[in-house]
């Protein structure tokens, strides 16, 4: 082992990888005019939330920020991850440019409308 590898391995020790992002639980439903997606993101504020659409991919990510008093020693933890991430594939009939997002009390609510032409129409049946 030469000096270079030693430095490299010490670097990795000093920067352990952060815990994997949590996958937030979601509710998803569809009605005539679009989809509603609700995700639990406790500890995420508006400033630390990202909702991104890239092509047909919808990505939700957020960083958890729970201010801790000085000298806090963690005794027991069920949530150790410091971020959330989950992505979805949107279907073609959705209008990603009109997505509305609302974050309240750690719950993200996304409204993804269908494009006008994809909304259901009643089809007249002609009796001839």
């Amino acid at each position, binding site marked *: 082992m030469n000096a270079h590898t030693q430095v490299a391995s010490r670097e990795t020790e000093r920067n352990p990888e952060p815990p*994997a*992002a*949590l*996958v937030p*639980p*979601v*509710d*998803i*439903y*569809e*009605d*005539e005019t679009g989809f*509603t997606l*609700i*995700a*639990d*993101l*406790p*500890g*995420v*504020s508006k400033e630390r939330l990202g909702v991104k659409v890239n092509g047909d991919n919808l990505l939700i990510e957020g960083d958890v*920020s*729970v201010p*801790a*008093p*000085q*000298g*806090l*020693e*963690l*005794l*027991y*933890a*069920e*949530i150790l991850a410091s971020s959330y*991430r989950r*992505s979805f594939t949107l279907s073609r009939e959705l209008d990603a440019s009109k997505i509305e997002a609302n974050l*309240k*009390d*750690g*719950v993200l*609510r996304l409204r993804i409308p269908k494009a006008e032409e994809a909304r259901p129409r009643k089809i007249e049946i002609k009796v001839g």
Partner: protein
Amino acid sequence: MNTSLRIPRDMLAEFERLQQQLDRVFPRSHSADSIRATAHGEFPAINIGSTADTIEVVAFAPGIDAKSVQLSIDKGLLTVAGERKSGIPEGDDRISVYAQERFAGPFRRVVSLPEDVDPGRVNASYRDGFLRVSVGKRESSKPRRIEVQ
């Protein structure tokens, strides 16, 4: 260099979520855990920490009405109870539901506080979907410096 051989982190997180869902259906036995330990993935998730003067409890309970939460401390036990309504409109047959993973219904969690606490000095606040409860420690359980004669 061998990054491509590693399992993507998202995939691990996905397994973790699956594990949580399975635990909910088939609880694993917790042989050496605290008697009040519940199956992983219980709502709300709780973290407990300690400072020199306080015990800090954080309950991750997004989307609840802070005013309706029942919080009590009795004999070193902290109880958080309440109810969370489903985000999916009920009784509407024009909607199709594709995912219903979020917790809905009444919840109640009891945690035993790690040290002697003073129930008279409690602060609770709710922000960004987490409930923070700060309980003062009794004088006798605070760390003290002992003079050696």
